[in-house]
């Protein structure tokens, strides 16, 4: 892949909130999950697990407890922290923010992979972790941290960035010195 092609994927991805009523191909899901698997990890720790949910009634129930889920996606990938794995790896979840960063890198990789396949995605952090853990029947040591909604876009979102929604590079980047 050429650098320009990569940047095209990055800059044309948008949050998709309306999904078509169509299932996803297993190969597409595996592609997306592979992208998540190859995300960077602090200290090479492997304390997160990815739970794929395609059952419509379970998705509907997760949505009920997830105010941040506005659409009705075909699948969810729930990024979970396994407290047992964290303890074994001596990761201090209450002090170390690195696991949170790892959740973000995995989510971003998967959303870009979905976009590269022509699929839509939307991140969800606004959900009741306790309620979603119950709905998904998670073991007590497992915490749902982040939900990636996936589906075929009902309508492609506008691609051109609006001037107010995207800061110019020179607004957010400083070279060598941070101005006072």
């Amino acid at each position, binding site marked *: 892949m050429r650098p320009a092609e990569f940047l095209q994927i990055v800059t044309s991805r948008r949050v998709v909130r309306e999904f078509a009523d169509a299932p996803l191909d297993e190969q597409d899901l595996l592609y997306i999950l592979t992208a998540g698997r190859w995300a960077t990890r602090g200290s090479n720790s492997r304390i997160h697990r990815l739970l794929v949910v395609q059952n419509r009634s379970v998705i509907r129930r997760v949505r009920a407890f997830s105010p941040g889920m506005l659409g009705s996606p075909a699948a969810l990938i729930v990024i979970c922290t396994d407290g047992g794995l964290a303890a074994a790896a001596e990761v201090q979840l209450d002090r170390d923010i690195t696991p949170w960063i790892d959740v973000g890198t995995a989510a971003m990789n998967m959303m870009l992979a979905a976009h590269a396949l022509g699929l839509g995605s939307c991140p969800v952090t606004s959900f009741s972790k306790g*309620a979603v853990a119950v709905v998904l029947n998670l073991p007590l040591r497992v915490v749902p941290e982040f939900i990636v909604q996936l589906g075929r876009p009902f309508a492609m979102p506008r691609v051109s960035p609006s001037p107010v929604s995207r800061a110019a590079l020179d607004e957010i980047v400083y070279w060598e010195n941070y101005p006072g």
Partner: protein
Amino acid sequence: MAESSCAVRDDQAWELLAYLTASAELCTREPHYYGTFRLIEAASRLIGFMLADSEASTNWLRDFKSEIDEKKLWMLRDREAYFAFLKEAAATLATHMNTEGGKR
């Protein structure tokens, strides 16, 4: 004249209950303006349930829901316009409820 009825199904009522309860939890940690977003989204979801089973005010309600679903997202990019819409939405609903056809 007989009162029109508007039944919300059992599963719909539970879904809305779950949404509102989870929203209350989120309001403890999210920016304050998200609280307004959760409420207007709940209004939209309630209308969606009403439209599924009600014949009354269908066209008006469908338009009102469309307007909410479009303008609620202003919260993300134009908060001033979003807050203005919220002020307008309640008055719009009250006006409709006062009209002859939609008297409630």
